[in-house]
């Protein structure tokens, strides 16, 4: 017990120092933590069943019983927004993970082999030439809407961005002296990539992933708004907003609260990404 106390105190002190030095990142991190908790504990903290329809409670403005009002079917908007966080965060995190892993693998190959590079980068140029949301729309039009297809549809247009980043990092790192010496000591390409190149490319990849997460959350909502997002049985911020759209004049709370949740989330993840970049990349420190 006694041996833990100083370590704990030290950790608390350095945390306090970090918060003091980067207040916006700390607030953003707190928001993200609250959101993740809300999503995980949605079943326990949501005041009502998000799917419970009530004919008598239709389109009620915000009140004590329904802090964010009720929708056209009498469902509690707050409970739906809390449950919607699950889909938004799931999509955001999955897209960041899928596009980062797939993109890094392709990027490393492209950076390492000239032949792969030649073919792969042309395909990536082609993918990059189609606006991401359009590619996602086309994809969903072909494969129909489910949570999985939404994740894939948003990930695919993001992959070229990761590929470009990783490729450029690999290209610049592989000529460095320490990689050269690893190679001369007989390290194979896989060992060089895994042990020497990827760890040094981790910082920019991580920063990129956080921005991809933010844009994916936004993209999911946009697709939901267009009626192409996750199926309407599962509440997501996108389809709550899409359903509320027709009541914009009479019941603006239907739209306002989920959109606010969405904006705050995207803002928080973006700020966190900025903070991450500042912390990991000395070039940006104290500049922007």
């Amino acid at each position, binding site marked *: 017990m006694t041996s833990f106390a100083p370590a704990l105190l030290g950790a608390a002190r350095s945390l306090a120092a970090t918060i003091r030095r980067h207040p916006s990142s700390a607030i953003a991190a707190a928001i993200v933590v609250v959101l993740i908790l809300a999503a995980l504990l949605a079943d326990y903290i949501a005041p009502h069943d998000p799917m419970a329809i009530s004919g008598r409670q239709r389109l009620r403005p915000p009140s004590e019983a329904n802090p964010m009002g009720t929708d056209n079917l009498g469902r509690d908007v707050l409970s739906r927004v809390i449950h919607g966080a699950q889909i938004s965060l799931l999509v955001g995190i999955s897209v960041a993970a899928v596009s980062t892993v797939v993109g890094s693998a392709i990027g490393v190959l492209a950076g390492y082999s000239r032949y792969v590079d030649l073919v792969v980068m042309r395909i990536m140029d*082609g993918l990059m*030439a189609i606006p991401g949301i359009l590619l996602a729309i086309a994809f969903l*039009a072909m494969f129909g809407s489910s949570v999985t297809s939404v994740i894939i549809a948003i990930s695919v247009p993001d992959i070229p961005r990761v590929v470009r980043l990783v490729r450029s990092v690999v290209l610049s790192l592989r000529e460095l002296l320490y990689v050269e010496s690893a190679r001369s000591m007989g390290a194979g390409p896989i060992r060089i990539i895994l042990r020497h190149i990827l760890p040094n490319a981790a910082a920019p990849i991580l920063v990129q992933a956080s921005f991809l997460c933010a844009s994916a959350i936004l993209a999911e909502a946009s697709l939901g708004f*267009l*009626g192409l997002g996750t199926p309407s049985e599962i509440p997501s911020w996108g389809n709550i*907003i899409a359903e509320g759209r027709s009541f914009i004049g009479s019941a603006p709370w239907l739209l306002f609260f989920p959109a606010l949740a969405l*904006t705050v989330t995207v803002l928080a993840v973006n700020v966190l990404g900025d903070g991450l970049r500042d912390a990991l990349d000395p070039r940006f420190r104290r500049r922007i």
Partner: protein
Amino acid sequence: MFHFIIRRIIFAIPALIGVSIVVFLMLHATPGDPAQVVAGPEATAADIENVRKSLGLDRPIVEQYLHFVGRAVTGDFGVSFKTGRTVVEEIGHRYLNTLQLAGAAMLFAVVVGIVSGVLCAAFKYRALDNIILVLSLIGISAPAFFVGLVLMIVFSVQLGWLPLTGNDSWLHLILPCVTLGLANAAIIARVMRARLIETLDSDYVRTAYAKGLSGFRVITRHGLRNALMPVITVVGLQMGYLLGGAVITETVFSWPGLGRLIIQSISSRDLPLVQASVLLIAVTFVIINLLTDLLYGLVDPRVEVA
């Protein structure tokens, strides 16, 4: 300069080939038989066979692709399933509407973005700078459809100053153009600010101050010119997002452009229209990137060497 232009044009070709492959695969990646999809759910076996023949789907896939490209190059995208008119007829004026909207949004974004970026740099780390920075962060994070709907409520429903939807007059253009351009304005403002702050830190700017020029003159004559280069790149890159964002903005404001056509065609399973519209937007994007590169070469004499 001539060599530079030729080289940039050659570089654009692989991107166009990539786009054509992606759009071509749209039809073939659809689960199930594409002929079945094209013929519709109520088609008989004979109908499906006819469609397969007429679309050439019984040929080897490479041959089909070359055929598709051959027709696309000559502007032949087939006939809309729904209206029976040629695809070119259907999308022509829609394309112009989208270009008008995207162009206006870009103009708005460039003007607002540069002005606020300059204001930020001129008053860096002070109240105005912080206010604009926070606003720009919100501009980047707020979804376009939300911004659009809020603008609609305020300016059309409540105040009644601007029309709600449609595109009958230039007044109809204002809200969609602000909605579409807002995020880009925010991004341009941030890039402008960062570069201008950096530029204003350099020796020649100190020299300009030293010889007694006013702050305004230093910023406009010495700072702005050199800080504009990255902004041009960003504008070119953002054009792609603008064309994509147009899909959402057009849906919010019922603007009769390509984006709205794509959404409508998807719900009516009108694949030739979707293919042609996506291809047209992608080609436009590639051409804009090419023009950005060329503009870059014109503005910055150093690029030619590279």
